[in-house]
């Protein structure tokens, strides 16, 4: 059993957690270049789409929402990683959360930023996206607040603001530490961002109070955000979309995919930044158990949804159901069940199989499975409308694939930049004062 970090001297901890901030390795540069190239390809694709029209995508009547909306829901779902884990674990005062919170909060902010791009990317006239905002104008224009898309706009704005603040607040004391040790432009950056933090007890009290309040509020917002995204679909009359279960279903799915993303990210950080002493088997074990719990919950909701549709036998819904489980989309559907339920159950349910490696594999499977789940929610319903003469299929074009790939590259890049500028484990939070009662 390796030495627990609590028994390592302060200096060593600080050194370990600040070391990644200095110097750029060859792999880092390589990864940045690759991510940049993929990101650029995505931008080119988007530019082409803006110039030539939405026809360059694979969209067609009646499948008016395709990859872009799938990605939107997927990334907003991932964003529930951070804040939920961080907030719930803070509220319940779980000590093992300490090295995990900042990485999780960073995932939230970046996933939100990426997810929020898609409502703009998917627009037929994307350059007019600002018309969705209520701003005074001389042309008698106003947005329609009854539309779930406006609820989306408000919810995501609130969540993004809240997440950035929630990421920033516990970063302040670390920034103050960094301002003493770094040189040149970094010192200015850290000093400005740390707002002159001195470490006085007034500051600590205010910070802790603010964090407690923020944890509760961000939790309330996070639950509402993905419910609102779910209601984009549930508020319609489309078959198998108009379901009351969608709100909780999506939130569960979001937490599920969020934890999976967190495990993958932490495993990568642990390997690359040599944080084996800080992100231990203990942490991965706990996260794996949470992932398993969410997998069971997800399966419960999926079961409930599909069983009620099948038993109810409504013709409009059955057309979609048949397409999903027996016809064109069946391979995706059953793969999804395998990846989201069977794999986690086996790899994480059997204690002997639950290791850091298997937890990472299970998480990667869940990420793919959850992406498929979003696809299976959106496309089969649209492809099988109530008036069957309009039924069709959907195949994404290179534009949609390029933009999808670019978002993953963007996530990697944002994360790499973040971990170079700020310690990915909260130094002050990680090491409680030596004489504090546990």
């Amino acid at each position, binding site marked *: 059993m390796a030495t627990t970090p609590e028994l390592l001297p302060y200096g060593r901890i600080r050194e370990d957690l600040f070391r990644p901030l200095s110097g750029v390795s060859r792999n880092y540069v390589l990864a940045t270049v690759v991510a940049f190239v993929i990101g650029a390809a995505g931008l080119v694709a988007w530019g082409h789409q803006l110039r030539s029209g939405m026809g360059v995508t694979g969209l067609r009547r*009646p499948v008016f929402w395709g990859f872009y909306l799938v990605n939107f829901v997927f990334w907003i779902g991932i964003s529930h990683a951070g804040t939920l884990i961080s907030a719930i674990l803070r509220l319940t005062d779980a000590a093992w959360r300490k090295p995990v919170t900042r990485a999780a909060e960073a995932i939230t902010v970046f996933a939100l930023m990426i997810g929020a791009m898609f409502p703009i990317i998917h627009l*037929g*006239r994307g350059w007019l996206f600002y018309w969705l905002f209520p701003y005074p104008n001389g042309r008698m224009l106003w947005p*329609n607040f009854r539309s779930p898309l406006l609820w989306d706009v408000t919810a995501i704005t609130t969540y993004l603001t809240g997440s950035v603040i929630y990421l920033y607040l516990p970063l302040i004391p670390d920034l103050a530490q960094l301002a003493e040790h770094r040189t040149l432009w970094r010192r200015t950056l850290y000093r400005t961002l740390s707002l002159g933090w001195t470490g006085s007890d007034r500051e600590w009290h205010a910070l802790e109070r603010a964090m407690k309040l923020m944890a509760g509020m961000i939790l309330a917002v996070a639950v509402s955000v993905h419910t609102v995204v779910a209601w984009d679909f549930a508020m*319609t009359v489309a078959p198998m979309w108009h379901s009351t279960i969608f709100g909780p279903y999506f939130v569960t799915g979001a937490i599920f995919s969020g934890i999976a993303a967190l495990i993958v990210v932490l495993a990568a950080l642990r390997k690359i930044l040599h944080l084996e002493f800080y992100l231990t088997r203990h942490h991965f074990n706990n996260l794996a158990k949470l992932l398993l719990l969410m997998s069971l919950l997800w399966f419960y909701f999926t079961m409930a949804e599909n069983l009620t549709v099948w038993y109810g036998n409504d013709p409009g819904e059955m057309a979609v159901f048949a397409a999903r489980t027996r016809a064109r989309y069946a391979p995706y559907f059953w793969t999804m069940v395998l990846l989201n339920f069977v794999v986690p159950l086996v790899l994480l349910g059997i204690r002997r199989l639950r290791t850091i490696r298997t937890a990472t594999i299970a998480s990667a499977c869940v990420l793919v499975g959850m992406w498929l789940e979003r696809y299976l929610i959106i496309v089969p319903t649209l492809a099988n409308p109530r*008036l069957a003469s309009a039924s069709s299929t959907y195949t994404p074009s290179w534009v949609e694939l390029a933009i999808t790939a670019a978002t993953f590259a963007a996530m990697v890049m944002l994360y790499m930049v973040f971990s170079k500028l700020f310690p990915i484990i909260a130094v002050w939070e990680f090491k409680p004062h030596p004489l504090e009662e546990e």
Partner: protein
Amino acid sequence: MERRWGMTIDLDRCTGCQACVVACHAENNLPVSGPVEAAKGRAVHWIRVDRYYEGTFPDVKVKYMPVMCQHCDDAPCEPVCPVYATYHNAEGLNVQVYNRCVGTFYCANNCPYTVRYFNWFEPEWPEPLQLHHNPDVAVRPGGVMEKCTFCIQRIKRTKQDAAQEGRPVVDGDVQPACVQSCPAEAMTFGDLNDPNSKVSRLAESGRATRLLEELGTKPKVIYLQRGK
């Protein structure tokens, strides 16, 4: 009393000739998709004729059903548009405001009749078709949703002409292109609020049905058919 425009289509008369489709194309400056885009399912037909086959050879029965925007009184497409590009006007029409549409596709996803069509590219017409545009109708830019308007330009023109000539608009004055062109005279158009109009009387008939009535959209296109 305000008008409430509605339409009846007699399915027992419809021959499926698609003259209404062609007339609509000509009247409303519908873009020509071309064979490639049409194969991708992107052809724009504000009115389309659905074919339903019943039975097997030699006892096959075919039903032709022209479907266009039903101008629902409780239209599901209207509340979901975030920019008010589609709303219900005072005469009961579901209006599409082309220059306000930003292309969220939400209205199209929420239409249970799948009657909304999107301009995937800037519209094009092969020579010399660009010469026959109707000056009363806008040419829609790419990125904008469109659908049947009950030939609102003809409604407006009729009302203007009547006002200029100092006479009221009588039943039968307003005829959308599809109604006008039907050789079997299967379609009627008029004011549902006027109990004496032909549309209102036909709507009371024992053969009157509505599409997807159970959804509560209150469509204003009434299909007359003996049996379902």
